């Protein structure tokens, strides 16, 4: 499987983080349950990749595997993760620990549960600086204040003694971002960073993450179920379904020419400003499959409006089709191919959706 690549590859920076053919499995070796399959992507310095999909599509599992933070029952059973050319599987536990925080950092979804409730903000922010980087307490304190300023927390010095539950939700997310960037990571992984926040705060946090990425030259991997988030922040998008990438390409291509029925369905489920307010949204019927009982063929076929007999039998490959360069689609039917007829899209002669 190819990583997302374009003819502009020569101009793109060498990837900082590269994932190829990653497979994550749970359960015994004889009866494994694969929650992530054949996932490949690459992000370069300063680039932003959005990984999109419903809950349970393997997005978070992919990123936990990248960070080496899978729970003890899970494992990477195939493929590899390369950070700055180093295969992470070859690193010792100690080297891997050194990489976390400095090479790659994580912002999780719910800042309240992601911050230690019994430690003050200052103590947890300063912990790696004092105990692993040999900074003095005073220097670490200065650095924490500087970081809190950077993420836009007013009166930073006074906040260092606060416990997480004493801050507002948006404030906590900012603190979590400050802790994540404290080690000057080269890759920032944001797992649903705005899901737990209300809409106005979401926009502020997204702008903050975007600004920090540009200012600090980090590569960003943002995991979300919200295509709106991706549109605002990411250059590249990978849409995941049931542990596999079903469509990948530049953000422009995905939004202007969505090709996979799942991507289109996700887009149809979002309200748009240029449509009448009373237009009904089209939800995707059903739920993503349980990885223990994944359907044969294309995993999306039970929910797909355009399912064909072939879909139930054959797992389509992720391939370029006739879309723009670097735009990959995993669909046997490919109803929105440039050459496809309207009938393939389930549109009858009268033009209405069947």
């Amino acid at each position: 499987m190819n990583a997302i690549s374009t003819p502009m590859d020569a101009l793109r920076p060498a990837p900082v983080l590269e994932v190829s053919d990653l497979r994550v499995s749970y359960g015994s070796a004889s009866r494994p349950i694969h929650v992530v399959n054949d996932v490949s992507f690459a992000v370069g310095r300063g680039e932003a990749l959005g990984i999109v999909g419903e809950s349970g599509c393997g997005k978070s599992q992919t990123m936990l595997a990248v960070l080496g933070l899978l729970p003890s029952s899970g494992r990477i059973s195939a493929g590899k993760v390369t950070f700055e050319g180093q295969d992470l599987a070859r690193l010792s536990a100690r080297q891997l620990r050194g990489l976390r925080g400095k090479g790659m950092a994580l912002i999780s979804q719910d800042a309240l549960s992601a911050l230690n409730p019994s430690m003050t903000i200052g103590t947890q922010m300063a912990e790696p600086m004092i105990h692993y980087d040999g900074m003095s307490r005073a220097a670490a304190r200065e650095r924490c204040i500087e970081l809190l300023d950077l993420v836009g927390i007013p009166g930073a010095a006074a906040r260092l003694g606060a416990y997480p539950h004493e801050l507002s939700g948006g404030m906590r997310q900012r603190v979590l971002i400050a802790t994540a960037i404290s080690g000057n990571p080269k890759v920032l992984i944001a797992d649903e960073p705005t899901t737990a926040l209300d809409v106005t705060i979401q926009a502020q946090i997204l702008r903050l993450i975007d600004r920090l990425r540009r200012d600090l030259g980090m590569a960003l991997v943002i995991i979300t179920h919200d295509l709106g988030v991706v549109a605002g922040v990411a250059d590249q998008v990978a849409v995941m379904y049931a542990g596999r990438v079903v469509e990948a390409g530049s953000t422009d291509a995905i939004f202007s020419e969505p090709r996979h029925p799942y991507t289109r369905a996700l887009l149809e489920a979002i309200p748009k400003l240029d449509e009448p307010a009373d237009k009904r949204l089209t939800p995707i019927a059903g739920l993503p499959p349980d990885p223990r009982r994944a359907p044969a063929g294309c995993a999306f076929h039970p929910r797909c409006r355009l399912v064909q007999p072939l879909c139930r039998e054959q797992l389509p490959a992720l391939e370029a089709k006739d879309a723009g360069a670097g735009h990959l689609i995993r669909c046997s039917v490919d109803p929105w191919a440039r050459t496809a007829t309207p009938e393939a899209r389930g549109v009858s002669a009268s033009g209405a959706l069947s």
Partner: protein
Amino acid sequence: MLSFIARRALQTIPVIFGVTLATFLLSQIIPGDPTDILLGPGASEEARAQLRQALGLDRSAVGQYLLYLQNLVQGDFGQSLTFSKPVSEVLASRMMNTALLAFAAIVLASVLGVAAGTFAALKPGSLRDRALTVVVLFLNSMPSFWLGLLLILAFGLQLRLLPVSGMTSGDGGLVNLLAHMLLPTLTLAAWSLAAIARMTRSSLLDVIGSDYVRTARSRGIGEWRIVFFHALPNAMPAVITVIGMQMGFLLSGAVMTETVFSWPGIGLAMYQAISTRDIPLIQGGILLLAVAFVLINFTIDILYAYFNPKIKLA
């Protein structure tokens, strides 16, 4: 924190009143005329009336309760029938012995329990985890009098390594005292140790699976720092609650253990008082144990607040 402690201290006052009421009611509920017990069935009606007046038994129930409280405040718990001494003297001479045993037991149970639970939680499902589960189950299912008798049989009678009864023998030095303490302490600690180990394990596993431990890992914090600085402090409130509850159980467990090992503590005195229907001593003993229980809970609440900053707001 100070205002929290003060508020919590005030809350214990009604509880202690409730306990005095309960022990008072005990004397009211128990059938029979106290003068029968004190003077014997052949006493004259005159003598009975005199004694009733002296003891305040001729007053109304409320009046008797107030008299009881008045005496308690002055440190007068009444007269023990079996020991022919004031109850307060009997209890005072034995309180330290029980405290010593209970303290040794809870320290042993806490240290070993937390260590064992942590040891198991670091590798869930491993051989050592499963072996520990079996030991914990064994200790948990073992009644303390039975374990005590087995220990006496093994170490006292077969191996003849340790004394099996009393607090001291011979010259009674520190080593002699410790030797006498060892078996009763083990017996008393066993059940609590198992409960503490189990709670430590499950609470720690919960915390290790939490988001903030993942955050700490994602920032490159090492495994031992995670366990000791992130996981254990957050697992502690649950463990402390169990330790506190165990201290309550230890006080009652002391009755059994002290009886089995003839340890001259409150438990043994209570056992003797119950078998001889020495009501004032039973009342005094219950009151003392109940107040100790309340004070322990008070201390636990404060420790709880120390480990969990959110409590202080409430």
